[in-house]
């Protein structure tokens, strides 16, 4: 018995020790490797950028990163590799604030970049640095309905008809969903001669039709498409078009409302990081190139609305022309919108918790 126990124990210890050794070995290995890479970067031989982005831009940037690397190699003879990080927009912004060394950020809303600016990592006036509010590509908020549009949904006011269930994520946890909410609010304002009380009533009714508040855009999409819950999904145009492609245009269709919001996902160079790492030149060129013909075409191919006229005309059939208002026109800026609508105790909270 005791002999066998010893065997057992020896085996156990052996596994633990090899595990630890493997761990330590690997750790030191990867440490030196990354240190080496950093040094090389500083020597401007090869350069590495980290682009911290939000969730649905992976395919866009995967394609764009290749295009930019080729362009940069041709232009400057320098090899550039771009690492990508994707996650919820607010979470990504917090990671950068807490020390994730992003050279550039490409997020879902200006508010999240403002937050990084407040920490002094990005210089003031970032939104004026590039054209179109530093938003190289835009999108808008549309409806995804089941094939044949059985509930006859054509515009925002159809969403509050009896028996219509609306799926939209929680604007408090999803940056993207804030655009959904603001689009509805903007529509109601325009319908009611800018009467805020009426607009508030409208969004209140709208959210009374929401049976499930998912935490993120993708959760809401799953709820609508895979679980078969709800009659209409409020979504970004690029996500709606993408889900048509991925999940089948035989099951769903996209409906454009009469008016919607111009969603501007902005980009910025993280000044503190690029100055420290000496990557400013390439980081700025990286964002600038998004506005080029090639960059814009890639954006359009990934269902984002291009801003460059020549590419716009080329893809005119893909993106329906509807009346769009901007956040600045209706809400001043993101900070004001955030404060008034989404912060604790704001208008969105009052929908669910009676004002005390």
């Amino acid at each position, binding site marked *: *018995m*005791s002999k*066998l*126990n010893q*065997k*057992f*124990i020896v*085996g*156990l210890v052996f596994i*633990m*020790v090899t*595990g*630890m050794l*493997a*761990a330590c070995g*690997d*750790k030191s290995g*990867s440490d030196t490797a990354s240190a080496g890479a950093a040094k090389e970067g500083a020597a401007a031989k090869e350069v590495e950028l*980290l682009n911290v982005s939000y*969730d*649905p831009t*992976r*395919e866009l940037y995967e394609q764009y990163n290749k295009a930019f690397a080729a362009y940069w190699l041709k232009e400057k003879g320098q090899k550039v590799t771009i*690492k*990508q*990080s*994707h*996650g919820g927009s607010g*979470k*990504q912004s917090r*990671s950068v*604030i*807490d*020390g*994730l*060394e992003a050279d550039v950020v490409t997020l879902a809303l200006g508010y999240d970049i403002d937050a990084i600016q407040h*920490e002094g990592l990005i210089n003031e006036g970032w939104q004026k640095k590039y054209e179109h509010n530093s938003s190289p590509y835009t999108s808008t908020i549309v409806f995804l309905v089941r094939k044949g549009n059985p509930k006859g949904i054509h515009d925002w006011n159809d969403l509050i008809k009896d028996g219509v269930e609306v799926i939209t994520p929680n604007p408090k946890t999803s940056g993207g969903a804030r655009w959904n909410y603001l689009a509805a609010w903007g529509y109601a304002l325009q319908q009611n001669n800018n009467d805020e009380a009426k607009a508030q009533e409208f969004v209140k009714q709208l959210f009374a039709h929401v049976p499930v508040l998912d935490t*993120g855009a*993708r959760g809401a*999409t*799953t709820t609508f498409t*895979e679980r078969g819950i709800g009659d209409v999904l409020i979504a970004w145009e690029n996500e709606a078009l*993408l*889900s048509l492609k*991925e*999940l089948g245009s035989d099951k769903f269709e996209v409906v454009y409302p009469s008016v919607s919001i111009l969603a501007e996902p902005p980009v910025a160079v993280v000044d503190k990081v690029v100055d420290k790492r000496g990557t400013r030149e390439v980081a700025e060129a990286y964002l600038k190139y998004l506005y080029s013909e090639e960059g814009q075409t890639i954006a359009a191919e990934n269902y984002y609305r291009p801003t460059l006229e020549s590419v716009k005309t080329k893809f005119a059939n893909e993106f329906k022309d509807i009346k769009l208002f901007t956040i600045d026109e209706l809400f001043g800026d993101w900070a004001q919108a955030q404060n008034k609508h989404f912060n604790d105790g704001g208008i969105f909270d009052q929908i669910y918790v009676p004002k005390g």
Partner: protein
Amino acid sequence: MAGSVPMIGQTSPRNEKLTVPKRRWVKNVLIVAAVLVLIWLIVLPLAVVLTESLKKGWDVYIAALRDPDALSALKLTLLVAAITVPLNTIFGIAAAWAITKFKFRGRQLLITLIDLPFSISPVVAGLIYVLVFGSHGWLGPWLKEHDIHIIFALPGIVLATLFVTFPFVARELIPLMEDQGSQEEEAAVTLGARGWQVFWRVTLPNIKWGLLYGIVLCNARAMGEFGAVSVVSGHIRGETNTLPLHVEILYNEYQFSASFAVASLLLLLAVITLVLKSWFTRKSVH
């Protein structure tokens, strides 16, 4: 009572004899009930994962696993588990020894503190490391000055995983060792055995099953942890993405089948550790 010699491997056959014949129906009812519960609670969700992952066929399944990002995530996950499991195992044995073999004030408090990581939301578990090591954290400025990366790098992921799997081994051993008491160890000491001898020869053989369970659970959780790691990882593709994070990314890209395929890979890893466990069990029983 407490000084009992464990009789593993012998209990069940003896018991069989005991229950025959008039209580056979009790046994059958219990087995059927337990199996039904297991099917309902565990098998069903796992079946969903497997059917979803194979919905688009084997090609998609294999492709998802051979993706370089998936492979690097797999490597990172194994590495993290290889670091955290041994550390928490050593801690668990030490803590269980201190708590069950000695009486001291604040014992309940200590046990409760060990339990605490279970009750802390993974989100918060990640947050606390950000508060310590992040740019605005206690050590943030110092780390920055010395260009040391803790969060958004491997050490942060290891720390977060250590935290969430912290209690497993200790918690598994404490009730078991409590139950066994210390008579055997005391007898060994009286007979002149030294400290480590007592541990290796007397205690460890007695607790090996609990220890093994603890390690297996700790390992499973270390590989599957998502929430806490997600806060401190930085999500850099191919670099700081663990398998669970990779699952989430695929899911967020509408690649449902691929994402479930990677999730099933995690299940497979767990199954491998279980096979290892039963191999151990057999080796030491026969």
